[in-house]
């Protein structure tokens, strides 16, 4: 694509099956929409960053990833996250115990923030992704798909399950010398949920918003 033909800044609805986000979100350079084959990446001709990715898994896999992650969020919250023992007494901690403990230390604002970033928003994100992806998979996408997608994109920076997983891993290693810790099933569910969210998100965020009626394989870009 040449610089002189920055055609088709999507003013209205894009053609079905073509990617609507071909305006680079970093430098704002407009591109003509193209259909991407699976695993194909489109880079911005001006700044070189990735504009879009051809659906990495296909729609079925993305829907399956999101459904699995959403189901896993239930045991992640309910089942014990870790069991901590010291001199015979043993306690089970849950995903939301961290936020709860901060609340009782009179750090209400921080507590709410941890609750949002680690507990609430990851699940809300998954619910939004499911609400956009699943109807598109089984029938046609609903009229609210686009606002929901925008909400998900706006919330994404604040949902940090993968950061929480790393924080817990660091804390567990640090604690090993002080008390006996056992990782509970809740932690595994949460970790798998975080990984699946990342996989589904990379496909959702940079992938096509709705399914092309049939997979497009021929065209390429820059």
């Amino acid at each position, binding site marked *: 694509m040449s610089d002189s033909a920055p055609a088709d800044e999507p003013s209205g609805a894009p053609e079905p099956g073509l990617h609507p986000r071909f305006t680079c979100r970093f430098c704002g350079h407009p591109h003509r929409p193209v259909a991407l084959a699976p695993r194909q990446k489109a880079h911005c001709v001006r700044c070189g960053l990735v504009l879009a990715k051809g659906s990495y898994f296909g729609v079925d896999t993305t829907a399956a990833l999101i459904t699995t992650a959403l189901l896993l969020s239930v045991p992640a919250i309910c089942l014990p996250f*870790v069991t901590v023992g010291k001199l015979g007494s043993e306690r089970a901690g849950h995903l939301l115990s961290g936020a709860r403990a901060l609340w009782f230390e009179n750090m209400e604002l921080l507590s709410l*923030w941890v609750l949002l970033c680690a507990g609430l928003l990851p699940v809300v994100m998954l619910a939004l992704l499911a609400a956009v992806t699943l109807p598109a998979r089984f029938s046609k996408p609903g009229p609210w798909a686009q606002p929901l997608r925008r909400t998900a994109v706006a919330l994404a920076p604040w949902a940090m399950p993968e950061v929480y997983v790393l924080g817990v891993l*660091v804390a567990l290693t640090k604690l090993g010398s002080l008390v006996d810790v056992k990782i509970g099933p809740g932690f595994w569910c949460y970790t798998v949920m975080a990984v699946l969210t990342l996989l589904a998100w990379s496909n959702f965020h940079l992938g096509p918003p709705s399914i092309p009626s049939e997979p497009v394989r021929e065209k390429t870009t820059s």
Partner: protein
Amino acid sequence: MKPRSISGDDVPNFSRPAAFAVAAAIMLIPANILPILSTDAVGESRTDTIYSGMMGLFENGLWPLALIVAIASLLIPFVKLVGLTVLMLSARRGRSVHARKLTHLYAVLDFIGRWSMLDVFLVAFLTSAVRFGALSTIRPGPGIGAFAAAVVLTILATRSFDPRLLWREPSPSNSKPLS
């Protein structure tokens, strides 16, 4: 040098990202001075700042953890603030020959910000996991609130900076906003 108009497209307005960045820089001072964690184990109690907590991990031979904490808590906020300052100063002058590199820098800053929350989650988790009354207890210190605020402010600063300004053509007629 041509005169610059106060309003209009000629000089981009950085008041929001700049305000967030300054606020983040201010919050980083108490975040690094005040204790973030106090540990009361049997017969031993200590309070840790971000730096001393990291050194504690290092002295216990857990240097990979110390490295992770150092990157997340000390390096990333600093890199973000310096990087944003560079971006704002460059974007003032419109499109530069380094616009491509600067845009990549922005993409990196946008990605790394969230990892600073690591220390906050660490403290929250430790507080909930270790509470055995007199035996051993870990309590959060006031520094962690300041640190969390600083992290949120750096993320807000990055997000309120529009990287398209790095590609702004010098003449106002070309700076049609694309959104």
